[in-house]
């Protein structure tokens, strides 16, 4: 087998050294830069502000850019870190780094508690709760004078020693902050291409598809928010030592808004965007200072203009115009293990659905359906529009809670399991209206399938890439591996979705109207693809309206109408069943009457 050629090794797991040489070089450069910076005064302060803010804004990249959750309290977490360092060193005489660590822990715990409370709910709730947290923290910092020193703030925050070297000197301390900023940038950058980072982006792009691809959506959001709180506190703690004087008004709602704007202005989906956005917005008010009193007004207007004219932020704008056309990956990969298996249809029940019901108020979308899917078969579920087919699949995969009945999958009762747990048990699906992760590449989409917990390759990052490529080979889309899914045609997006499911080596595959929206050629291709999947032991349940397709692949057909099962059996029996004909073509008029 020839070696793979091209940008294959995605992610820090696949290449543990990824980014480290560049980061090492960056550290040397920033230390050199810090050594020639002014030792005190205005410009030193500007540099320190930019570097510490950048660390906080990188936290927003994780929660907002990667995971798509709005947090409007980054200045509060920044403030927690700053106050922990200031109060810890000045009032309690603790070592600087110990105080910083305490601040990070407090901030992380606050982030987790807020996240655990709200992230189960819709997107705007985190925004709302973070606003409240921000306001309450500001009030406490201002009014709990005995502990926080109140509006007067904390003065004379000391700077630490590192390996016996005092960083009292402004340039030395600036060096420390810049090195920290480089390391945090490296962390955030590597996070993006890690398994956790991919999970976050999947949650951002499509929560439902993420959950049925084995991702714990709630847990992923909480972790993302926790990381952002921790990074905020690190930035704030270092800020405290930099300015040596802090007060509550430095960590207000307005500052949270500024940080949010920095992330979006630079481009929140990239750590480099955060750096650019931070530097520009720290400098912009300085550049606009000649405007005297109205400079903040001009700043506000600039924010609107940037949002209108640079939708992906400054970095997104630059990146889109300088990115090299990515090359494709050549070289053979081992084919999907599935294809090497032999497996004929058997009588073993894989998915047993008993008396399943789903009611929406008075509407009985699924009304007491019994159904058994047997291993290795292609089982079609058909019925007129509104007969409850998609609702049925949604209940089976856990997106809807069953009103009644029981679902057993490979001997396990899954009726009340969360969607990602059902997927981890081996139940994969596609959607009628395609659900792919539009902001990610084709390869990344399929990798999310391959790294499903419980998949044989899940713990080896290199094998995950190979498996994803194998799935792309199967749907003949390897050439598009590095394109953004959102740029592909509808039919190709559907193949990406199928490849994502196949890469997870599912036990059972549920296809919800895979032929919907495809043209005739694409439908023929899809039929061929399904036929290639037959006979390898994979159990498939397919919903579709295209009778030709269904007849050509199905071993067994179940027909639903008005939420009830009206027929069940072999294709010949079912398609000649009078009730089925009536459901599809209407009742024959009784001519004799």
């Amino acid at each position, binding site marked *: 087998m020839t070696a793979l050629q091209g940008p294959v090794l995605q992610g820090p797991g696949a290449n543990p050294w990824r980014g480290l040489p560049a980061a090492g070089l960056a550290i040397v450069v920033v230390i050199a830069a810090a050594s020639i910076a002014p030792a005190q005064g205005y410009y030193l302060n500007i540099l320190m502000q930019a570097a510490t803010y950048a660390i906080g804004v990188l936290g927003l990249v994780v929660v907002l850019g990667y995971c798509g959750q709005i947090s409007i309290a980054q200045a509060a977490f920044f403030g927690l870190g700053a106050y922990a360092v200031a109060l810890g060193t000045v009032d309690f005489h603790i070592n600087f780094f110990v105080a910083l660590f305490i601040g990070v822990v407090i901030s992380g715990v606050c982030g987790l508690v807020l996240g655990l409370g*709200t992230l189960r709910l819709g997107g705007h709730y985190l*925004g709302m709760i973070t606003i409240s947290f921000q306001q309450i923290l500001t*009030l406490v910092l201002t*009014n709990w004078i005995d502990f926080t020193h109140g509006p007067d703030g904390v003065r004379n925050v000391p700077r630490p020693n590192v390996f016996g070297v005092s960083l009292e000197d402004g340039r030395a301390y600036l060096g420390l902050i810049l090195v920290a900023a480089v390391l945090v940038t490296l962390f955030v950058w590597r996070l993006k291409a890690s398994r956790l980072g991919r999970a976050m982006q999947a949650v951002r792009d499509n929560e439902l598809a993420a959950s049925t691809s084995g991702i714990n959506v709630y847990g992923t959001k909480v972790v993302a928010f926790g990381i952002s709180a921790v990074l905020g506190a690190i930035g704030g703690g270092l800020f405290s030592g930099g300015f040596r004087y802090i007060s509550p008004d430095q960590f207000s*709602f307005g500052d949270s808004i500024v940080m949010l*704007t920095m992330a979006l202005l630079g481009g929140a989906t990239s750590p480099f965007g955060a750096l650019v956005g931070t530097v520009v917005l720290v400098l912009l008010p300085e550049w606009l200072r000649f405007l005297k009193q109205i400079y903040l*007004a001009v*700043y506000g*207007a600039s924010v*609107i203009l940037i949002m209108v004219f640079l939708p992906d932020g400054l970095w997104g704008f630059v990146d889109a115009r300088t990115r090299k056309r990515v090359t494709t990956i050549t070289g053979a990969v081992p084919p999907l293990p599935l294809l090497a298996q032999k497996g004929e249809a058997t009588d073993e029940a894989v998915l047993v659905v008993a008396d399943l019901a789903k009611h929406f108020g008075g509407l009985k979308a699924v009304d007491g359906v019994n159904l058994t899917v047997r291993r290795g078969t292609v089982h079609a579920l058909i019925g007129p529009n509104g007969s409850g087919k998609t609702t049925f699949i949604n209940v089976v995969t856990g997106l809807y809670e069953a009103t009644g009945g029981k679902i057993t999958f490979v001997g396990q009762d899954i009726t009340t399991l969360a969607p990602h747990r059902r997927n981890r048990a081996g139940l994969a699906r596609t959607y009628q209206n395609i659900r792919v992760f539009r902001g990610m590449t084709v390869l990344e989409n399929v990798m999310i399938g391959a790294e499903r917990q419980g998949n044989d390759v899940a713990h080896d990052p290199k094998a995950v890439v190979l498996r994803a490529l194998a799935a792309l080979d199967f749907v003949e889309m390897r050439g598009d591996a590095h394109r953004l899914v959102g740029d592909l045609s509808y039919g190709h997006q559907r193949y990406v979705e199928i490849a994502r499911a196949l890469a997870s080596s599912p036990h059972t595959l549920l296809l919800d109207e895979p032929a919907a929206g495809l043209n005739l050629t694409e439908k023929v291709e899809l039929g061929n693809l399904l036929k290639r999947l037959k006979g390898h032991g994979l159990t498939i349940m397919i919903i579709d309206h295209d009778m030709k397709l269904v007849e050509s692949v199905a071993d067994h057909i179940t027909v639903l109408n008005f939420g009830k099962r009206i027929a069940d059996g072999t294709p010949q029996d079912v398609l000649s069943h009078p009730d089925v004909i009536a459901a599809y073509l209407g009742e024959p008029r009784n001519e004799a009457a």
Partner: protein
Amino acid sequence: MNDFLQLVFQGLGIGAIYALVSLGFVLLIRAASVVNFGQGEFSMLGAYLLVVFFNLWGIPYLIGMVLSVIIMAGFGLIFAYCTYWPLRFRGGLPVIISTIGASIFLQNMVLFLYGPSSVPVDDLFDTPGIQIGEVFLASQYLAIIVIAALLVGLQYFIFEKTLLGKKLQATSQDKEMASLLGIPVVLMIMITFAYSSALGGLAGMLVAPILFVSVNMAGIITLKAFAANIIGGYGSIPGAILGGLALGVAETLGAAYISVPYKDAFAFLMLLAFLMVRPQGLFGEKISEKA
């Protein structure tokens, strides 16, 4: 007990202001899915217009108010044109950021023009108020409550009983369907912006004699409108009104009986409590994402 009733009365007065601003806020969420961080700026601008017309130019109070409301309605259109229109197809977040930009812009323009000091404004009526038993009903608070009640009634009438109201409701429920039925969706959204801005402006003028007029009033009013909206139920119109009233009463009582410096914290503690225990708010979330 009488102290208590007195405080409840004042709380309802302030709460009616929050209710009006929150109402404008909710209408924008419903009509255009815009979470407007500049909602409090509508109130600030309305109050400053009153200062300019009445305090500086000596135009009679009521005429000044009517002029300000009309100008604020027009301003709502300009606001929509700058912050919402260019970004309307790009999802919620970019519009949020541009309303934040607008908020920064407006506050600092006003700061530049009128400075940071608070400006006092006369009450709407010369009579100080009515004494009922041991409770003193100050005229400004009474005016706020009565005007807010009239406006809510008027809005109910327009929304439920007129064709315009039906069109506005249809737009907020399903824009695509509404436009297929021949409803001019863009016009409906613009009307909502104008109305929301006028409502916010009026609330600012009504509260001006109580809080005094300053740049800082904008931010705090925006945040209270948020809180009222969550407490009442995200996107719910009766929720916005009741949430606003509840918030006003709770913070007035909290300030009187517990702590003055933490007055503003009560709103947010209430909000946190609701988010943790009953996130759908008093009336239930009206806007949910479809599966």
